[in-house]
């Protein structure tokens, strides 16, 4: 194959076939265009404000390492004047984070960023190893998932940082869009497509975890390009294949995305765009205003559902699909049994669409019952820790309560009491200003 010149500078030899659009670029142009695009995303979405302190959720993996590197570069090049720090979470699983945390420590030096590593023991009073010891290997996935979802926000809140950025890329977002279509979960689809989630609410208690803004500057960056960027910039990251198979819906969606990308490279971005557009069509969605007027809807709560829990003991693939299928069949049977006539008249006449929409909007829709989560949740704050929650007490606190009850007494005093002081103060403040944000 004769060497072809770079499509951008027309001077250097093209060495890179750009995954996103198959253009042929030289190394320098690829790096520059990749960075420029992230800058474009940051500025058009006004992700940051000058002087803002931003915590980069760092795992040592390629996404967060590239995010840290690019943000450092752009911060200097375009004078964002950001105070960037690294925040890592240690689940407390012996050996599991050793290598990746070493990587993050080196990154901190390389990028001259301050690094904080917070352990589950500090955040929750329990390491995952202790949880496993307590509840056995079987049920610990629940804990790991629930704890992980809150960990970054809780950590940031500890550090007094109001904004956490994560390394979610276009592939992740596209996968989530397809996954939520397959699960039939429109509310979640609409929440996870926005680039900024958990918009701070002015009237909320500033000390609460609720006030953490989350954003994903790599939302439109292809995973393959992130790998290429890391490679050509010789970034120091910890590459590990996740050994845990994702649950069936996500696995399915991931496979579809990979196949789509093969058939049409732009498909990943096309799915992301579809997801954003569909979010505006979800009944009762506030996506019409770009999520800006959303009152505390935590997407962080659902988007970190990926593997890497570290102690998942062979989650049965297909198990989740089978149980959703069973649930849906029950619903269908109920509909066929009791509601046949009602539904017929409802959906057939001219205004059927309207009525269905209302049903989905208001009380739980009778047909098309969404597995697990119902249509629209009112998000409030956990009475105990202040974290965003649809229940009075958030999942983490419920789990902690269970754990702490079972824990021998002396442990409680060391582990939990310390934790409880900070949580208590949040709770007290909340109680004092417990007027619902609206």
């Amino acid at each position, binding site marked *: 194959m004769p060497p072809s010149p770079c499509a951008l500078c027309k001077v250097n030899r093209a060495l890179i076939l750009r995954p996103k659009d198959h253009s042929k670029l030289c190394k320098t142009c690829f790096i520059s265009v990749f960075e420029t695009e992230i800058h474009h995303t940051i500025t058009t979405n006004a992700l940051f404000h000058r002087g803002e302190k931003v915590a980069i959720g760092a795992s040592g993996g390629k996404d967060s390492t590239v995010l840290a590197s690019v943000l450092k570069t752009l911060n200097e090049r375009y004078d964002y004047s950001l105070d960037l720090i690294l925040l890592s979470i240690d689940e407390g699983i012996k050996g599991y984070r050793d290598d990746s945390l070493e990587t993050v420590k080196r990154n901190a030096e390389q990028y001259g960023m301050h690094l904080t590593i917070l352990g589950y023991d500090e955040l929750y009073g329990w390491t995952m190893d202790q949880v496993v010891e307590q509840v056995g290997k079987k049920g610990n996935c629940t804990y790991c998932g629930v704890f992980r979802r809150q960990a970054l926000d809780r950590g940031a809140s500890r550090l007094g940082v109001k904004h956490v950025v994560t390394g979610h890329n276009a592939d992740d977002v596209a996968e989530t869009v397809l996954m939520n279509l397959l699960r039939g979960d429109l509310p979640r689809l609409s929440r996870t497509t926005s680039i900024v989630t958990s918009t701070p609410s002015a009237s909320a208690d500033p000390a609460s975890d609720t006030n953490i803004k989350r954003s994903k500057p790599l939302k439109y960056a292809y995973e393959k390009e992130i790998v290429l960027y890391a490679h050509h910039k010789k970034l120091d990251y910890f590459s590990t294949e996740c050994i845990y198979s994702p649950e069936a819906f996500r696995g399915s969606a991931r496979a579809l995305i990979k196949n789509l990308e093969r*058939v049409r490279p732009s498909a990943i971005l096309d799915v992301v765009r579809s997801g954003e557009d569909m979010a505006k069509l979800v009944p009762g969605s506030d996506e019409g205003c770009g999520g800006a007027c959303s009152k505390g809807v935590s997407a962080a709560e659902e988007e970190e559902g990926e593997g890497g829990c570290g102690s998942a003991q062979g989650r049965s693939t297909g198990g989740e699909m089978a149980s959703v299928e069973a649930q849906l069949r029950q619903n269908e049977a109920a509909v066929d049994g009791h509601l046949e006539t009602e539904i017929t008249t409802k959906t*057939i006449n001219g205004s059927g669409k309207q009525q269905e929409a209302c049903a989905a909007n208001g009380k739980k829709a009778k047909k098309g019952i969404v597995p697990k989560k119902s249509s629209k949740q009112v998000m409030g704050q956990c009475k105990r820790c202040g974290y965003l929650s649809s229940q009075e007490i958030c999942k983490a606190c419920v789990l902690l309560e269970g754990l702490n009850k079972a824990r021998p007494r002396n442990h409680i005093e060391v582990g939990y009491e310390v934790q409880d002081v900070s949580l208590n103060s949040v709770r007290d403040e909340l109680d004092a200003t417990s007027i619902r944000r609206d």
Partner: protein
Amino acid sequence: MPGKHLSHASDEPCRRCKHNLSVLVVRSEPLCHDCFARYVHTKCIKRLESFRVHFGAEQPPRILVPLSFGVSSLTLLHILNRHLQTQKSKTGRTGFAISAVYIQDPGQDLPAEHWLEKARQQYPDHQYASLPLHEVFRLVPDDASLQALVPQLEHQGNASPQQRFAHLINSLSSATARADVLTTLRTRLIVEHAQRIGCESILWGDSTTRLAQRTLAETAKGRGFSLPWHISDGASPFGLHFHYPLRDVLKKELVSYTHMSEPGLAALVHETTPGVAQASMSSKNTTIDDLMKQYFESVEENFPSIVANVVRTTSKLEIRPGAAADPRCSLCSMPVPGGRFGIHAWGGDQQDGQDFTSSGRNNLCHGCTRSIPKPVVGCSGS
């Protein structure tokens, strides 16, 4: 092949009539021949409430059934035909009148007249027509926008519809783009035909499985914005109504139905694309539609309710108020929110390009922009 979908195995009695032996298992319910037929009929007929007999009406409304001679569209015609006979025997009147149309794809070996004649013999009470797909360039009235898609031929006023059509299809660079554009043009021709012969509604044969495929395929092509128009019953952006009476029946159930129904139905089935789903997914000719077809045909096997739930959920997406006033895409004719044509108007493209305001004549939505190649610079000028 016949019988493949009938899992007899069980000597269980039918769960519904508790009388006959079951001949197949439908969503974990063993059903006998009659109860299964009733199951399919009921699911279809209950979607036809708006086509009941109206005694006041002078003439029953005319509806269009697009035929592909595949399992789904023929089953729909079969059930509609049966429904009309029932209406007539009960009331002496009918709630609607049927026109059927077959669109000939280019290079299609199916002798249209021959097959339409067979359909006419089987279901004689209806009107039948066939149109070659390139007629879309002749029939669609605001064809200026379609013509603009073939700029090189624009100045040759005398280019025939065939020439324009061939030129457009040859300019498409991938199998996905070709399949996408063909589907879009087919829809537009069908709509145009429906309007010309005075149909108020188009009744599409899409099964649940097909609608689920459609949902994910259009999502993957960047047409999430127009999804409600593609899979919901009701007013379409074209002015007439779209209905999907088989939306609650799975593809595999329709296949079983054609095998168990009277032989005249099965004899009409002429699947034009057999084995698409088996095609190797690494092949260059694989399309996004193929991918989704293969995916949902496998999910349908074990998780039919998940397939149904995808469709049910997606049909809850709401059409934005005021959507009808939005500017339309030149190719698919869908209302594009705020007239944000092209891909550069969207932040995710991460470019400052302005293609959505640049040309007033070639306004393509995100999905259509991906399929239609960019015009060669300098060619579209004077």
